[in-house]
């Protein structure tokens, strides 16, 4: 299929060994967007959550200590870079690898928080993410077996067969779990109650951008 009809005119290619990256307005926008948000996270402080205390006139302030701040910021930056990688990669296996890395980092960003409800939610999301990695990689493996390539540019030139459709369905299931889209949203939403706005941005950002890129990739693979 014609990638230009899906993502816009191809500006150029970046060959990296047998992996060929292609640059379109879509991939460029998503890549730049992920990098800009990552930069913002790197330079920002965290907010202080203020809530009225029950039974008194005092305020309850929840903030992040320096040690927690440093480890969460580090994980958030790595997650941002992994998201940027997933936006620009031209290889299906690399994409699934980035998605899995994002899932692990999302759990890591929240696991440093000392709030039981948030940790419970992170644990539940972790279970879903771990389970989802199996169909994700299986799907990529099936597509490799059926076509002999994982390069998205090459896959665009190959007529899809039933095994490719099945592999794509598995990838879709894996992505739904990893990114926490409905019906898996319930496991992930509670994670966002934690303080540390810049860090939880990257959890949301990575999920939504991954879904958007996945739509492009799945359409490229499954249409001819």
């Amino acid at each position, binding site marked *: 299929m014609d990638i230009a009809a*899906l993502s816009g005119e191809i500006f150029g290619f970046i060959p990296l060994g047998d992996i060929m990256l292609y640059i379109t307005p879509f991939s460029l926008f998503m890549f730049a*967007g992920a990098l*800009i948000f990552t930069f*913002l996270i790197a330079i920002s402080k965290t907010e202080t959550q203020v809530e009225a205390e029950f039974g008194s006139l005092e305020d309850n302030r929840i903030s992040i200590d320096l040690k927690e701040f440093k480890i969460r910021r580090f994980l958030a930056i790595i997650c941002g870079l992994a998201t940027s990688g997933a936006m620009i990669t031209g290889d299906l296996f690399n994409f699934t690898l980035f998605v899995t890395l994002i899932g692990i980092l999302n759990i890591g960003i929240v696991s440093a928080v000392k709030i039981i409800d948030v940790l419970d939610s992170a644990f539940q999301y972790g279970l879903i993410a771990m389970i989802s990695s199996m169909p994700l990689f299986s799907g990529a493996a099936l597509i490799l077996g059926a076509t002999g390539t994982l390069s998205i540019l090459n896959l665009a030139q190959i007529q899809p067969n039933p095994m490719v459709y099945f592999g794509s369905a598995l990838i879709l299931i894996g992505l739904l779990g990893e990114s926490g*889209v409905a019906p898996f949203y319930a496991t992930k939403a509670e994670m966002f109650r934690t303080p540390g706005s810049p860090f939880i941005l990257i959890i949301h950002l990575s999920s939504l951008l991954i879904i958007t890129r996945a739509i492009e990739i799945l359409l490229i693979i499954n249409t001819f």
Partner: protein
Amino acid sequence: MASILINLLIAAFMGTVLIGLQRKVMARVQMRPGPPIIQYVLHTLKFYLKETSFPKTAAMPFYIAIASTLCAIWVTGIIMGPVTQGSLLLIFGIYAMHKIVEHNAGSSSGSPYGKLSCVRAVFSASAELPLFALLIVVYLQTHTMIISDIITYQSINGPLIFSIPLAGIMFFVLLITKSHYSLFSITKGKDIISGYETEHFGVMRGYLMFSESISWYMLLWIYLTVFFGPLSLISYFMGMIVISVIIAIINAISPILNPNHSVMFQITCAFIGIFGSIILMII
């Protein structure tokens, strides 16, 4: 450059007026006089003249950057939509980033209302994105995601609303979702004051309202362009007014849903829209 500026001005003005019209119609349906139609325009301009203050608890400079980013995102939307008629997929990406900003505008201030809105934004994004993904049905029908090519396809084969009606109807649910005071607007429910906008003052609030106006115009523009084919300028304006009035009537007579119900309703619509349309295309 001139084309971008003209389109931006049209989008900002039409968006604010249409939101004002929607509030007026809602008020009349509810037997209230309602605000003047230009109230939203005045309201937006007012915030640019007000003093800007920043909460002591906010995550700086993230708090400032996030409101400005929303403007930048929708200006890109204008460039990729009405100006260059680029890829729908890119507009999908812009919409995803809009949801991210909506989520973080709430959480960056430290306000508990903003925080609740942030959690609800995660809920709503998990359903709104699949709803926006209905546009893949357009691709399966036309074999292109480029807006100018979709317009050409419709000028030859007729409007897509007749060939993929289910996708058109379900995309309309997304329009309802993003309209003001809708049954799905859980991120700005009055139980959490103004949701993610609660702790944004002065120019920051102005940015958010300006961006909301453009996003409303853009969603209507996408709907009319993708499902109703090549339209003249007058047809666009008439179409936007008609859709805004219909949505206002729906919003006026429906209560806001519980977040879980809202998400499940939207995801059901997305499921029916995508898979129903594909089954209909196969049959």
